[in-house]
Structure formats: structure tokens, C-alpha cells
């Protein structure tokens, strides 16, 4: 039987690939046979990810996706893609009362504008092949739940899911599919760097997850499904993976 989850002969771009979820997506998609193109802002960490991809036609591109010229240079140097995973993201915990335009702008720039503009540029330059699969890394935040202190991040992820539905419709004639994965809390350096919560608070929060917090591989495996031909009839959807958190 042909493996429906195989990513062989697919060129796949993964953003935010130098750490956390994006890094694991790069490693997992490479393991499933894809030629993986990775981009991030940090050279050393990007090099480190590339080394972990193993054999294959993998390439890395240093780029700050919040800068227009760097986005243009990136789109020009990429081959035509069969898959695109928009994983670059940041988080900032602030009670809503402390939110201001500058902070909101920073979050929206990285989490919403950059992935949307990158997708837009790739389309304009006809870099997405027929049957290409686009996967946003979204969140339960802003889409299924709210969490105190998380209003800016939630807004950016809610915006992704809203826009994705329309993009999915518009690109369906080209058989380009557009979906997102909406994970609950996943163990990453981002979580460890979210210093606004104490270790004790994080441990208590994990108790609210029937299956505990997720691992980066849990997200990567969901992304593999959405990238592979196994999901060729799936578009415009949010794949909720949260260890049972939102059924309660």
C-alpha cells in the first residue's frame, strides 16, 4: 500500500523553524520524505535545525519575515512549493488593561501580518503548485477558549482562523488547501520563557488537561496529515489538538 502520509517528492517551506514547534515540524516532514526549506531569524539555531534534517534536498533561508524586502528575497529564492507551514510566532502575556498599540502591533506583525503577507507573495509569484497544502499553526486561544493575559495572542490567532476560511475558498479551484492546527499548551522553550507564570502555576494548569500538555511531535504529526495527500479533501478546517482540554 502507498503510505497516504508520505511527503516524498514534496517541497515544503516551514517558517519559525529554528525552535519549538516549527523546528519539530521541519524534522518530522523531512523524516516523511519531504525536501524541507526552513526559514527563521537566528543563523546558528537555523543551522542547527538544518543539521538535524538528515539526508535530502533541504535548504535554509535566513529571513526576518516582518521586513518586506526580506520577504521578497525569500519568495524569489524559493522553489515552487507543495506545502507551506506558517509556524513563526511569538507570545506576550499582558492583562488587557496594559495592552497598548505598540505591543499589539508587535504581536500582530509576527503572528498575523507576516504569515498572511508571505502566503500572498507566494501566490502572486505563482510559487504554490496545484495540490499545495498550506498549514497555519494557530491556537486554541482566540478560537476555542480565552486565557487571562492572552488577549493580544488570541487576537492574532483568531484573525488567522478567520482569514483562512476565505483564502481556502478562493484557492479551492487551484486545489490549494488551506487549514490550521489549533493546539492547546505544548511543552516548548516558549512556554519556559513565558516567565509571567510561576512553575507552580504551570504545573496546576497542566492538571486541567485530561491528557496533560502536548509535545511538539503531537503538533508535527497533525501537520504531516494536513500536508499529505491523506487530507486531500480537507480544506478550511481547524484541527483541534488539545489533550481533551476544551471538551470539559
Amino acid at each position, binding site marked *: 500500500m502507498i503510505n497516504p502520509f508520505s511527503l516524498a517528492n514534496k517541497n515544503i517551506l516551514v517558517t519559525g523553524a529554528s525552535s519549538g514547534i516549527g523546528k519539530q515540524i521541519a524534522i518530522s516532514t523531512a523524516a516523511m520524505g519531504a525536501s524541507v526549506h526552513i526559514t527563521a531569524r537566528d543563523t546558528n539555531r537555523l543551522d542547527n535545525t538544518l543539521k538535524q534534517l538528515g539526508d535530502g534536498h533541504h535548504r535554509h533561508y535566513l529571513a526576518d519575515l516582518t521586513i518586506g524586502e526580506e520577504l521578497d528575497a525569500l519568495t524569489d529564492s524559493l522553489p515552487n512549493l507543495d506545502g507551506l507551514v506558517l509556524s513563526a510566532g511569538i507570545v506576550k*502575556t*499582558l492583562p488587557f488593561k496594559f495592552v497598548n498599540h505598540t505591543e499589539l502591533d508587535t504581536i500582530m506583525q509576527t503572528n498575523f501580518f507576516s504569515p498572511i503577507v508571505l502566503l500572498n507573495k507566494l501566490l502572486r509569484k505563482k510559487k504554490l503548485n496545484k495540490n499545495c497544502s498550506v498549514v497555519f499553526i494557530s491556537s486554541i486561544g482566540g478560537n476555542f477558549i480565552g486565557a487571562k493575559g492572552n488577549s493580544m495572542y488570541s487576537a492574532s490567532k483568531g484573525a488567522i482562523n478567520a482569514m483562512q476560511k476565505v483564502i481556502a475558498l478562493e484557492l479551492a479551484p487551484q486545489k490549494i488547501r488551506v487549514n490550521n492546527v489549533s493546539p492547546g499548551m505544548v511543552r516548548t522553550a516558549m512556554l519556559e520563557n513565558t516567565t509571567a507564570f510561576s*512553575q507552580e502555576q504551570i504545573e496546576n494548569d497542566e492538571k486541567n488537561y485530561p491528557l496533560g500538555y502536548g509535545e511538539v511531535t503531537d503538533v508535527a504529526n497533525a501537520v504531516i496529515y494536513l500536508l499529505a495527500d491523506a487530507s486531500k479533501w480537507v480544506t478550511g478546517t481547524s484541527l483541534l489538538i488539545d489533550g481533551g482540554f476544551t471538551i470539559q
Partner: protein
Amino acid sequence: MNIETFVQAFAEQFDEVPAVSFTPKTLFKENDEWSSMTALSVIAMVDENYGVRLTGDDVRKSSTVEDIYNIVLSKTNA
């Protein structure tokens, strides 16, 4: 920075407890209004007013307003 203005800014994060009742020695977790939300507000206030990144663990190990002030002071000088 001085402790008087710090205590005042700290007290502003509470809506129910009167600001005048706060002193450097106030055990700030021992009132009904203290919650994870006030903790986040204190962290945000310290970031906004003093440019210092307080952690959840800093707040957890502190008991008095002065304890927090001293952590902010040590991080300002670092």
C-alpha cells in the same frame, strides 16, 4: 526609584482594597482581591514603569510589597 511611589503603583493594581492601606510591609497576598490576575498586573506595571521583567516565580516567593520592590531594585542595578 523610591519605595513610596512603588507602593502607590503597586496599590493601583487593586480595585477594591483602598490604596492608602498599602505600606512596604503589607502582606499583599493576604487580601481577598489577590489573584493570578493581580499578579499579572503587578508584573505588567513593573515592566511598564521600571522596564524590569519580573517573573511569576519572583512574585510567588515574595510576601510583602517591599520584597517585590527589592527584586525590582536588584534587577534594575543588574
